[in-house]
């Protein structure tokens, strides 16, 4: 992997296309430039500049309402599904501007998948069908191919052994944690490069949470992961990098902003921004 650091240290970089963000030998990166989401006329977050490195877990932390979800939803063009919502600035997936004219947001979302706090599993459909829904949508109809995809995705989501003899059973039979892993399998089945998680463990008990965390760590070697979390320990446990969003108490507009990005260990042991310091020591948020 070629990182910005190695380039700066004078090591020979792989060939880079001019102007486009730095490319990587393995995995896929996101580059956020001057991103400003709006709800109607209201600005939701101050301009965000953020590099999300490939095959790492980037945690996004911060108090409620500071725009974490909004920012995350801008990364795969989900934000614009909200009525009146729009985005300024850009996001690059590797060398491709996903907000460029002519880019179909539906195709972007197939490359950059998303998992929500609420698993939104289809309760009446079978476990199998819940995973197959994405591949079916992309026109895969051959039974064998679907079977293989479903099995592979469930394996990846560490759910296969718990459900392999009841694939035809309705998904409502699964526990909350299993449903969340099912929703991860559903996302994996469309083979994304990047997966965004919006507080995936917020509704889960500690045991289910630790299973999801193990799963994320295992997925890191093949996927670029971004996770919004309220749980600071979770960020420390699993993430490589941490981005901190805060609402400025002095500003009267209550618009959140990105105040600090760094390696997770660095953010928690040696925060550069006083607001981060207050937040992680429990004085705010």
């Amino acid at each position: 992997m070629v990182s910005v650091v190695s380039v700066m240290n004078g090591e020979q970089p792989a060939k880079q296309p001019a102007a486009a963000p730095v490319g990587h030998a393995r995995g896929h990166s996101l580059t956020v430039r001057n991103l400003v989401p709006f709800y109607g006329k209201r600005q939701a977050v101050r301009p965000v500049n953020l590099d999300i490195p490939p095959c790492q877990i980037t945690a996004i932390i911060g108090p409620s309402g500071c725009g974490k979800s909004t920012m995350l939803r801008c990364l795969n063009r989900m934000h614009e599904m909200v009525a009146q919502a729009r985005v300024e600035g850009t996001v690059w997936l590797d060398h491709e501007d996903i907000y460029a004219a002519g880019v179909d947001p539906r195709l972007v979302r197939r490359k950059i998948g998303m998992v929500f706090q609420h698993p939104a599993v289809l309760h009446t459909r079978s476990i199998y069908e819940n995973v197959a829904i994405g591949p079916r949508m992309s026109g895969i109809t051959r039974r064998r191919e679907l079977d293989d995809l479903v099995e592979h995705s469930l394996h990846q989501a560490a759910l296969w052994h718990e459900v392999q003899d009841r694939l035809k059973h309705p998904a409502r039979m699964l526990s909350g944690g299993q449903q969340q892993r099912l929703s991860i399998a559903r996302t994996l089945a469309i083979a994304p490069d990047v997966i965004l998680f919006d507080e995936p463990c917020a509704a889960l008990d500690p045991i289910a949470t630790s299973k999801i965390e193990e799963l994320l760590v295992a997925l890191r070697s093949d996927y670029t992961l971004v996770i919004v979390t309220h749980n600071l320990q979770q960020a420390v446990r699993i993430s490589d990098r941490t981005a901190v969003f805060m609402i400025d108490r002095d500003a009267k507009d209550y618009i959140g902003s990105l105040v600090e990005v760094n390696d997770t260990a660095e953010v928690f042991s040696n925060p550069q921004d006083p607001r981060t310091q207050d937040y992680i020591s429990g004085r705010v948020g």
Partner: protein
Amino acid sequence: MISSVKASAPRNYRQTTTINLTMQTLLVVATLLAVAPLLWITGYVLVVGGSALKLSFLTKDYEAPELATEGEVIEGFPGVEHQGFERDERDGPNLDFVARGGVLHGIVGTMIITGLALIIVVPIGLMAGVFLAEYPDTWVTVVVRFACDVLTGAPSIVVGVVAYVLLVRHLGFSALAGSLALTFLMVPTITRTTEEMLKLVPMTIRDAATALGSPLWYATFTVVLPAALPGIVTGVMLAFARGAGETAPLILTAFGNHTLSFDVFGPMHALPLIVYRFTDSPFPSEHTYAWGGAFVLTMIVLGANILVRVVTAYTQVKGR
């Protein structure tokens, strides 16, 4: 001082207790006043209409009233004596006329006319409901929603007159014209309930579908509509009940027909028409048709509603 629950009552305790009691009483009385007419009407129809019910009433169509034969017991119904035609004792019971027919033609007619209307209305109402709920608001949605609300309150006789002028004057009285008139009254119900039910489906489901790269129509038809199905079916049933009970538009379109008919291009009878035509029949025994018709109509609407409740409850239990 010894602490006591009683002594701790605030100064206005009595006052608030009295007000509370008064309000409760008022609410109960108001509820009873509101429900009483409903129970009274339904009960009256069920008791009086139900007594008219024999098997032949459901299997025969209209038969002209005949003089009762010597010694025949006139199976009147409790309503006859009270319907204004006082029978003279000197006429003797045998001089009365007997209504021996039934309302089969009305049952069949109501099913055909309302059924046909449903076939036309369900796809249109569903699509319109999806359009209102799932697609962004523009001036078109505003106009459609407004038109629906206006139609909901439109006097049904007006719809009948319009159908009469546009269709019947050129093509003659027909069941089909009746169905088309009913569609105008049924479409707003289905459209608006579909819209409301779709809006109740949690955003999380749509979000999940969108995040998989699903186009809007795919998510709507495979995920969102099925989730809202029980509510939508209820809307369809409400529309059916409304259509089955309408009289005014049918007077000017389907018109009525004393014999059993399956020809949708010709006049056809329907249960509300039977009720309308026979309540003021000069033959008191024919009032049986009106009461019995009202009874059967009530039963059909009630039965359909119960059936749907049971079916949706069953699929919900299976589904959730």
